[in-house]
């Protein structure tokens, strides 16, 4: 697969230091291209979450250059940040749901922030909640949801507005294998629609489920392949076998509801 011309993200010698401590990330350089599926791996403390924070513009680097969507993200004025963030979908490791909002309102939040009319919110949000298996929990507040349910609400919220880039930090860490696979199919569907997907995970089995994915491996704050993403597994010469879907994943044969919000 040849790389498209326009990169969506470019890191060049990026370093990140919290306070006066040692660098959490050192000399990070890579390029992400539109419509690709990336996995970010590494041991705990390797800097995955720090790198994702830079990707979803929650943190400014201590040094280096970052370009996103063709714009210098380092010197980006504060007032332009919301426009960039609306092009991103983020699944936080700790979910970060708004505690006093229901599951429905949490999922609807990106659409409301973007100014989507209320009458255009109900259907896609209900479909998304149905897809992640939470249709009967739409009124529940996060405190009454299990860890896995909260994670699914967080994922639904991240993908509801069909972002240009999805950044997910351990998105399947709290769900059972069937649901993990189903959520992965959701990410793949989004990816097929053109969204660049970056998933941080320890789960090798999850990585193996996406044959065309690219891997970035972090080790003690450095990318093990500073030129960019390694390919894992090696390019196939024969078509990949169809993944075996669980009953839950097969429940919606038409695929996840990603045609709901007009781009």
């Amino acid at each position: 697969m040849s790389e498209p011309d326009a990169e969506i993200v470019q890191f060049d010698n990026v370093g990140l230091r919290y306070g006066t401590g040692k660098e959490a990330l050192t000399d990070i350089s890579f390029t992400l291209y539109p419509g690709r599926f990336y996995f970010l791996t590494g041991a705990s403390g390797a800097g995955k979450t720090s790198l994702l924070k830079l990707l979803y513009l929650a943190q400014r680097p201590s040094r280096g250059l970052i370009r996103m969507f063709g714009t210098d993200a380092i010197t980006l004025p504060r007032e332009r940040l919301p426009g960039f963030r609306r092009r991103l979908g983020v699944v936080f490791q700790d979910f970060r749901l708004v505690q006093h909002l229901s599951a429905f309102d949490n999922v609807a939040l990106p659409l409301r922030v973007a100014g989507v009319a209320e009458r255009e919110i109900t259907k896609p949000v209900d479909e998304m909640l149905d897809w992640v298996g939470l249709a009967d929990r739409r009124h529940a507040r996060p405190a009454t949801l299990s860890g896995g349910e909260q994670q699914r609400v967080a994922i639904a919220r991240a993908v509801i507005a069909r972002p240009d880039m999805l950044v997910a930090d351990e998105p399947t860490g709290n769900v059972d294998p069937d649901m993990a696979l189903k959520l992965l199919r959701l990410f793949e569907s989004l990816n097929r629609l053109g969204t660049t997907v970056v998933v941080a995970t320890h789960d090798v089995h999850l990585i193996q489920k996406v044959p065309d994915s690219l891997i970035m491996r972090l080790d003690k704050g450095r990318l093990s392949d500073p030129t960019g993403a390694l390919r894992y597994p090696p390019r196939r010469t024969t078509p990949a076998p169809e993944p075996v879907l669980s009953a839950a994943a097969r429940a919606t044969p038409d695929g996840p509801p990603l045609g709901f919000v007009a781009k």
Partner: protein
Amino acid sequence: MNAAALFGRSREGEPGLLPDPRLGSPMPWVIAIVIALTVIAAASGLRNAGARASADLNGGITVQIVSAAPDARNRQADAALGMLTRLSDVASARRVEQDQLNTLLEPWLGTRPGDTIDDLPIPALIDVRLRGSATPDRVKALQAAIAGVAPAARVDAEAAWLTPVFRAIATLQWLAGGLIALLAMATIAAVVLAARNALVNQRETIEIVHMLGGTDAQIARVFQRTAAMEAAAGGTIGLIAGVVAIVVLSEQFSALGSGMVAGAVLNWFDWVMIAAIPLVGVGLAVLTARLTVLSALRRML
């Protein structure tokens, strides 16, 4: 976009980003106290301004015929009254009846049975209302004109003998203005503290909304809405309390029987001004909340 839809009560009936305003929180009560005091201070200032204006603009003049001889006193009083009624710039002139004078003097001279104060050399009084203000030049010209028919006449403008009172009134008006300025600052301080406290409590939610692409203005509108509701609740209570205080104080002043105070009632414009105080309070609270929140948000990424 509609901030209420974003963070407020949605059609799902969920609460907003900030807790709904409750009178259990201190801000509405602080606003209520501030608004009540402002209403009382403003009413005092407006009433005093009204007293001064009515005395100035009524063109009130008192003509005294100071003569110990009752006949001469009455003759000169009649001549002066006749002359005054013929003057075109005199709106009205009437001699104060002896019974009225007796009534005015009774508190000081007593009313024991058999007493009579008719024999006392009390000046005859003529109450005059000029068309327009009783300026010093007009008073001087009137004095000269009356002197021809009533040599014992003294002409005094009410505004002149009320000068020390007016000075005190002016001081009270400045005091009322100062109090209103201080109370406005107290409102600002209360809103700043409440907004900062809410920002600290809602910091995580604000960060999430920021990460989802929410703008500072969207977040600030939520705080503005809460500030407006709390200030409106407090302002309504404060206005009611302030108006009750004004009415009670007015009754007390009326009981004093002072002509000046009794004449200085609040007119409809004054009441409109007083009714506008809570609205100004709400506007001040909303503006303060907005500036406080935007200032704090600028320090966040």
